[in-house]
C-alpha cells in the first residue's frame, strides 16, 4: 500500500474530503436545529436538491456564484415552507410529509432540468478560490485546506455561531424547550409553533445552501438526483452529534473522507473494484451507527406535532 501514500493521492483525498464534507455539514447543521425544536425533517434531501437546482440555475443565468447561493437558499426555503405549513401548522405526520417532499423535489427538479437543458449538462466556470499567500502554497494540505472558496470558511463560522446560539441565548433555549417539552414552553408563554416554523425554515435555507455548494462548487453543474443521499447523511450527523454543532463538523469530515476515498483510490490507480469503493461512505455510516448510535440522545418530543391541551 506504500504506493498509495503519494502526494497526488493525499492531495486529492484532502480536497475531496472537504468538498464532500461541506454540503453534509450545512445540511447537518440545518437538520440539527429542526431536531432541537422537535421536528424530524426528512424533507431535507428534497430541500437540498431544490437548492442545488435553483442555485445552479441562478448562477448559470447571472454568472454570479454568490447570487447562485442566494438562489439555493431560496430553493431550500420553498420546500421548507411546505414542510412548515403541513407538519408544524397542520400537525401532519413528519415522516410521511418529509418523504413526500423529497420525492416531489426529486421529480420536479429532474423535470424542470429536462425542459430547460434537455439532455445537456452545461458547466459553470471554475470558481475563484481564496489564496492565502504562504499557507496555500504548502505541499499536500495547502491547496486543500487553505485554497477553498470563501463559502467553506463561512460554513465553519456557522459552526461557532450556532454553538454560541444554542448555549448562550434565549433563542437557543427556546429551541431546546420546543423539542424537549413543548407543553412547558407553551404554558411559559413561549410560541411553540413559531419557533418550530423558524427552525424548519432555517433547515431549508442551510440545506438549500448546501445543495447550491454541491452543484456550483463541488460539481460545477447540475445533474438530476445529484444530492445522492447527502441530506439523509445530514440527518444521521444531526442525530449522532447530540445537539453539538462541533460534532456535526467532525462527522461531516469523516463521511467526507470516506466519500473522497472513492476518487482518491481511483486517482491512485488502485485495483479495488469501483463498486466496493463507492460503498465506502454508506459502510461508514453503518459502522458509525453501530459504534455510536446507542449514545445518540434525541429530544423527547422529536417527531411529535404539538397541539395545545391535547391529552
Amino acid at each position, binding site marked *: 500500500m506504500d504506493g498509495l501514500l503519494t502526494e497526488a493521492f493525499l492531495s486529492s483525498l484532502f480536497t475531496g474530503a472537504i468538498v464532500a464534507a461541506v454540503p453534509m455539514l450545512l445540511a447537518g447543521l440545518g437538520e440539527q436545529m429542526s431536531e432541537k425544536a422537535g421536528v424530524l425533517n426528512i424533507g431535507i434531501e428534497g430541500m437540498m436538491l431544490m437548492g442545488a437546482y435553483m442555485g445552479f440555475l441562478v448562477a448559470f443565468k447571472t454568472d454570479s456564484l454568490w447570487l447562485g447561493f442566494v438562489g439555493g437558499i431560496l430553493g431550500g426555503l420553498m420546500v421548507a415552507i411546505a414542510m412548515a405549513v403541513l407538519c408544524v401548522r397542520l400537525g401532519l405526520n413528519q415522516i410521511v410529509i418529509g418523504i413526500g417532499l423529497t420525492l416531489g423535489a426529486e421529480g420536479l427538479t429532474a423535470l424542470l432540468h429536462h425542459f430547460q437543458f434537455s439532455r445537456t449538462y452545461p458547466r459553470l466556470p471554475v470558481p475563484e478560490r481564496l489564496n492565502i499567500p504562504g499557507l496555500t502554497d504548502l505541499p499536500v494540505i495547502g491547496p486543500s485546506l487553505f485554497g477553498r472558496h470563501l463559502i467553506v470558511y463561512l460554513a465553519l463560522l456557522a459552526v461557532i455561531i450556532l454553538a454560541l446560539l444554542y448555549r448562550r441565548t434565549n433563542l437557543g*433555549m427556546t429551541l*431546546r424547550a420546543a423539542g*424537549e417539552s413543548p407543553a*412547558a*414552553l407553551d*404554558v*411559559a408563554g413561549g410560541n411553540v409553533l413559531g419557533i418550530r416554523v423558524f427552525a424548519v425554515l432555517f433547515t431549508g435555507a442551510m440545506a438549500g445552501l448546501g445543495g447550491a455548494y454541491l452543484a456550483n462548487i463541488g460539481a460545477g453543474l447540475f445533474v438530476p438526483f445529484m444530492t445522492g443521499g447527502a441530506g439523509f447523511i445530514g440527518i444521521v450527523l444531526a442525530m449522532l452529534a447530540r445537539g453539538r454543532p462541533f460534532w456535526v463538523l467532525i462527522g461531516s469530515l469523516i463521511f467526507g473522507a470516506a466519500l473522497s476515498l472513492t476518487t482518491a483510490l481511483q486517482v491512485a490507480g488502485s485495483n479495488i473494484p469501483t463498486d466496493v469503493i463507492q460503498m465506502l461512505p454508506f459502510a461508514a455510516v453503518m459502522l458509525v451507527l453501530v459504534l455510536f448510535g446507542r449514545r445518540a440522545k434525541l429530544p423527547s418530543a422529536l417527531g411529535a406535532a404539538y397541539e395545545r*391541551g391535547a391529552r
Partner: protein
Amino acid sequence: MALATETPTNLSPQKGTGIIGVHGVTKRFPGVIAVNNVSLSIHPGEVHVLLGENGAGKSTLVGMLAGLQEPDEGYLTLEGQKTRLASPSASLDAGISTVFQHSMLVPTLTVFENLTLGAPWYERPPRAAITQRMEELKRDFALSLPLDAITGELSLGQQQQIEIARALLRDSKVLILDEATSMLTPQGAEELGARMQKLVQGGLAVIFITHKLAEAYRFGTRISVLKQGALAGEMGPEDLRGMSEDQAVDEIVRLMFGREAGAASAELRASTARAETVLKVTDLSTRGDSNVMGLQNISLDLKAGEILGVAGIDGNGQKQLAEALAGQRALAGGRVEIDGEDISLASVAQRRRKGLRYLTDDRLSEGSVGAFPISENTVLKDIGQPPFWTNGIERPHRIAQHARDLIAKFSVRTPSETTPIGRLSGGNIQKVLLGRELSGDARVVVFNKPTYGLDLQNIDTSRQRIAEIASRGLGVVLISTDLDELMALSDRIAVMEGGRVRGILRNDGSGEVLRLRIGRMMAGEEEQKQATA
C-alpha cells in the same frame, strides 16, 4: 407585594368580585360536561382551595384560568373587567401563573433557563437580575435553588419550587397550584403550606387545588367544593374560623358525597399473614443510568396473606423494584423466588402464569391500550389463552361478557364495554386494571401506587379490595407514597431510599412514632442539607 397598595376601592373587601371572577362558566367535552355553570371569586390575600374528586372539573377550571381552554358559556373577569384568556401567554400577561399537576419544566434545561423560559428570543438572558431576585425570594419565602443545576436531576419538591419561583419572578397576582402536594413528602407538603401563607400575606391570591381534605382545612382561607363539574358549596373564612378540623372535614365530606362518610383515615387492618412464604427476594440488584435509578441488594420476603408496604419518596427505586419483580426489568444480580421456585430468569408471561401479578402506576401508557375498547383491555394479558381464545380463535362474546362482569363488579363508570379505555377517567381505568390483575389464579400481587390520583370513594374501595385480597391468602406488595395508606393496610413497611431498602419496620400501630421513623428513613437517615446556590 405591589398589590397590597392597590386594593379595589369600589368593592367591599368581603363581597367584591375579587381579582379574578368566574361567572357562570360551562365547558363541555365530547360526552361530558366537565364544568357546569360555576361561579367563583378569587381574592388577594387568600388561599382559595378548590376541592373535589377526580373528574369534578378542577383541572378543566385550571385549564381555563391558565389559557389552555376557553369556556363554552360564561365569562371571566379580571379586577372587575370582562376578559378573555385565549392562550397561556394571555393568562400570564393577566398576572396568573399556574403550577400544573404535571411538571411544566423542561428537564434538560438548567434551573436558570427554566426560570427565564418564554422570554422573547432576542433578549439576553438576564443573569444578574435573576440572581438578585432569587436572593430576595430566598430571604422572603425560603426558596433556595441551584441556578445551574439540570432541572431533571432535582427532586420533585425542588422542581415545584422552581415553578413557584418562576411565578414570583413574573410578579404574578394570582398563583394557581394544581394538586401541588401529590408529589411531595408529608414534610414537603407542610413547607408548601407555610409558604402559601407567606405568599398571601404578601398580597398574592393563591388558588390551591387538592383532593385531600385535611390539607384543604389546614392551608385554606376559603374552600370551594366541586362535584361533578358543579359548585357543591363554599366555606368562607368566617365559616372556617368557627370550626375544628374534624367539623370542617365532616362538612366537606358532606358537600362532596352528599352523605356522612365515616372517618377519613382507615383503622389499622387486622393481620391475615400465614406461615408460608410466597415471595422471596434475595440480594436483588439492577443496573441504573443517568435516567433510571439502579437497585442495590434488595432482600424481602412476603408471607401468604401478608401486605408488605413499600414506602419512599417517589423516584427512589420503587418503580424499578416493581418492574424487576414483574419481569419487566433485567436483574443484574440476586434472585426472586415464588413459592420456593426460582423465577429470576422467567419472562413476564411465565411469572404471570406462576401467579405473580403487577398493577402498574402508569395506567395509560403501560397498563392499557388507550384506543382499544375496555373489553379487549381486560384480556390484554391473556391473549391466546382460553376461555377467551380457543384454538387461536378469538371469542368476542366471552370477552364482552367477562368485561361486563368486571365493569359491574368493580363499578366502572362507562357507557359500555366497547368504549375505548382511553376515554375513561384515571379512576375508572384503574378499576379495569385492578379487575384484570385479580382475575385468574393469583399468588402475589404487586401494586404500584394503586390509589394515586383517585378520588376518595375510589381510594376507599381500592383499599378495601387490597385488604380483601390479602385476607384470601395472597401476598401483596403495596408500593405507595401515601403513608396513611401504608400504615392503614400493611403488616410490615419496607422503606426505600436511593435504590436500597433502608429498613423494614413492623407496623405495630404505634402511629406517629412509626411515621416519624419512616419519614427519617425516607430522607436517608441523616438529614441532607439543602443545596444552596
